[in-house]
């Protein structure tokens, strides 16, 4: 019964979305305030209805109602509660419902906090949000209903064990929060095109939403990568897999958008480009959804065999992206460009950032879709794997990282490159030092790695120098430094933190790629081995019973310099439904890096294959990502940027001139 109510609420939400799409937009066009006023309550109604639909599906999962197809196909009574819960979105139908729920959440936020937006802008934004919702709700209701009933079954088919994991349970909501969050920038861009004007207030609205979406996306991607690292059993953290690329492309576009929106907010420049970027960022989110959901990645043929859903999503894609770009081509030339600037200026550096990020994004796009397009057109099958991406993507990142500390030190309009470089002398020295130390420690190579480490150190030290310069650390007395440090806006701190986070991630990536140690051995009980200065002795295996699996646990005693250094217990789990085995790596976290041990297959005679890895500084990859997200959060908490604060209090002229 609850499921039917949920289904009904879903259909009702579609009806409401249709009204919300048509009436406010029409009202904005003819100037009818009553029609425009429909939008906010409609957005709230949509949120309530979709929340109800989502909760009713959650109820079915939690109570293991196997008369619902989605529950039967993806759940099991013996599954731990948290995975019954995460099972709601751990499948196609449920995840699409989560997608529209988050979309409604963002729409409702505009309705609630958008009181200070011009009426027509708010009406148009909510209408565009509703248009997106209509497409996806039609898809869910007609092609992918999570509420489909089947004859009741006794037991469900279970969730893929490798997805039964805390990090992966909350990876999709974050990722979708990011994907769908970009719809806000998209809706604002379309609304701006419809109205034919944009201003700084527009950018001030778009930037926090993009920032929030970007943060969620950053965390979502980091979580996925972290999961891959410990769950897939050999310590890889990024594979340039199409599914990963699908989330990475919107991230790159959103990063570019954040920076160009900054220019637009502060200087009224780059309007036309920012709007295009907003459209592209969300389009890439849609393409990501399509890639993952249509099955086209498995093979072009699999897609052709069962194209119903794929074609549906493709139609949505064409309609939304094509429509948006057509509108852009038509209306964008009418937007006034403002804010002249010299090439060497804050604006100029942000343009460079945008060029490099967009080209990098395009490279990932081409690498991901080229094999599909080639096969569809010529039938030739090629593979585009990690070697291609490493070769094309990395060179684009080098100038970006080099320029990163410089940009924030350049003045708006016309900057002083020499002055900025001088202020970064300390950072350059630090980077040089880091590179030299690395070279001295790791003189066996690879020879490029010390340079990359130096680059990472440069990116970390840059913000420190920027901070020192801005608070006059060595030029003023302590009281003045204190006053200035407290006076710096939070968004400035946020930017510095995020930039430093990028540097940490770079160092983590370089160190673990260049100096990872690997050792594969066959061990009997009582035997030992060594890796990266650690001694491990194998004390045998023992069986253990989990909630919905049995496992074999190996025991390793670790020593370092002859001293005991803890124990590691890697295991192999066998799940009953579905019948699968997974390996659980045992990881010892240290300052230098992770000691990572995996139990392989049993050999005849009671010996075991054991894989040992030492991943130097690998934690920095995710620590950097967390810093980036924290930087975003800090910036978001800035008084001047806080959502819905375009009404700026009048300040004394002296302060404004500062």
């Amino acid at each position, binding site marked *: 019964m609850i499921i039917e109510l949920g289904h009904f609420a879903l259909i009702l939400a579609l009806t409401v979305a249709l009204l919300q799409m048509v009436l406010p937009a029409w009202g904005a066009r003819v100037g009818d305030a009553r029609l425009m006023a429909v939008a906010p309550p409609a957005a709230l109604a949509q949120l309530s209805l979709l929340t109800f639909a989502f909760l009713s599906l959650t109820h079915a999962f939690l109570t293991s109602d196997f008369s619902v197809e989605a529950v039967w196909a993806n759940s099991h009574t013996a599954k731990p509660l948290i995975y019954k819960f995460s099972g709601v979105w751990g499948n196609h139908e449920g995840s699409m419902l989560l997608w529209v729920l988050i979309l409604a959440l963002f729409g409702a936020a505009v309705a609630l906090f958008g009181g200070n937006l011009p009426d027509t802008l708010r009406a148009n934004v909510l209408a565009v949000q509703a248009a997106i919702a209509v497409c996806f709700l039609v898809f869910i209701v007609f092609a992918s209903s999570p509420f489909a009933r089947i004859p009741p079954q006794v037991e469900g088919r279970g969730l893929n064990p490798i997805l039964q994991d805390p990090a992966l349970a909350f990876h999709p909501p974050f990722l979708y929060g990011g994907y769908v969050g970009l719809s806000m920038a998209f809706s604002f861009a379309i609304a701006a095109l419809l109205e034919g004007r944009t201003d700084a207030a527009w950018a001030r609205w778009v930037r926090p939403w993009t920032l929030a979406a970007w943060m969620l996306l950053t965390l979502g991607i980091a979580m996925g990568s972290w999961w891959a690292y410990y769950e897939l059993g050999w310590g890889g953290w990024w*594979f340039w897999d199409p599914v990963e690329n699908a989330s990475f492309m919107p991230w790159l576009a959103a990063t570019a958008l954040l920076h160009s929106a900054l220019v637009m907010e502060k200087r009224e420049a780059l309007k036309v480009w920012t709007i295009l970027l907003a459209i592209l960022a969300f389009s890439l989110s849609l393409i990501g959804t399509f890639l993952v959901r249509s099955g086209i990645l498995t093979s072009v043929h699999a897609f052709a065999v069962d194209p119903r859903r794929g074609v549906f999503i493709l139609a949505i894609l064409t309609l939304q992206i094509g429509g948006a770009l057509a509108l852009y081509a038509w209306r964008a030339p009418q937007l006034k460009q403002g804010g*002249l600037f010299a090439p060497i200026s804050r604006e100029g550096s942000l343009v460079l950032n945008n060029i490099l990020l967009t080209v990098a994004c395009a490279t990932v796009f081409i690498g991901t879709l080229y094999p599909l397009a*080639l096969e569809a057109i010529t039938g030739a099958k*090629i*593979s585009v794997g990690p*070697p291609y991406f490493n070769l094309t993507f990395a060179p684009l990142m080098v100038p970006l990282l080099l320029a990163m500390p410089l940009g924030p030190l350049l003045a708006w309009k016309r900057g002083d490159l020499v002055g900025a470089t001088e202020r970064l002398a300390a950072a350059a020295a630090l980077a040089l030092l880091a590179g030299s130390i690395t070279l001295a420690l790791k003189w066996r190579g690879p020879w490029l790695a010390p340079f990359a480490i130096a680059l990472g150190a440069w990116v970390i030290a840059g913000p420190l120098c920027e901070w020192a310069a801005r608070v006059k650390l060595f030029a003023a007395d302590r009281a003045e430094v204190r006053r200035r440090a407290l006076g710096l806006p939070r968004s400035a701190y946020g930017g510095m933190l995020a930039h430093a986070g990028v540097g940490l991630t770079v160092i983590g990536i370089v160190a673990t790629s260049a100096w990872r140690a690997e050792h*594969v051995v066959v061990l009997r009980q009582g035997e030992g081995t060594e890796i990266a200065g650690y001694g491990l002795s194998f004390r045998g295996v023992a069986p253990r019973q989990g909630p919905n699996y049995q496992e074999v646990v190996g025991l390793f005693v670790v020593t370092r310099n002859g001293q005991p250094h803890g124990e590691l217990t890697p295991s*192999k789990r066998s799940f009953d439904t579905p019948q699968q085995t997974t*390996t659980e790596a045992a990881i010892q976290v240290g300052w230098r890096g992770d000691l990572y041990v995996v139990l392989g297959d049993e050999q005849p005679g009671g010996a075991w294959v054991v894989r040992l890895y030492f991943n130097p500084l690998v934690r920095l990859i995710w620590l950097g990502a967390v810093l980036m997200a924290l930087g975003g959060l800090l910036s978001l908490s800035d008084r001047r940027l806080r959502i819905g604060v375009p009404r700026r209090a009048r300040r004394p002229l002296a302060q404004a001139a500062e």
Partner: protein
Amino acid sequence: MRHAPTRLAATPGPARRGLRRAAWLLVVLLGLVATPAAAVEPDEMLADPALEARARTLSQELRCLVCQNQSIDDSNAALAKDLRLIVRERLRAGDSDAAVLAFVEARYGEFVLLRPKLNAHTLLLWLTPLLLLLATLFFVLRRSRHGAAAIAALAPLSPAEQQRLDELVKPKRTQRGA
């Protein structure tokens, strides 16, 4: 084996729905795989560490054909194991790295190479990033020259304007002097 990471909420329902399940099903049906774990087995390894290191590097360039986007270095599908053994056999026979790749490609087709070759098929793939970068730089530089020209066009003030400006600025200077 690491099977195709469908990390976006994806999960395999029936094969027609999720990539992951599709990959798994394929793998399970073919009886290829028991455990998700990395690939190289101790018994495959070559005694010569230099040769073994070359084998590992080459393994990362070759695709496991029955897996989804995995190199034979990551996969423990039976086919990947066969390919790893072929690579090592060719290396022991004294082949160069390029010769080993050519040998495998001749048998399994271009699809097996994770680093696409540069040919008529892939010209666009390899050149687009570079062309795009050059095109954007060209476009932006041209625009910025327009911008510079616009700034230059704005620059000169008429004598009357200059005088007015001086008058506006003057009182402040005297104040500061005082």
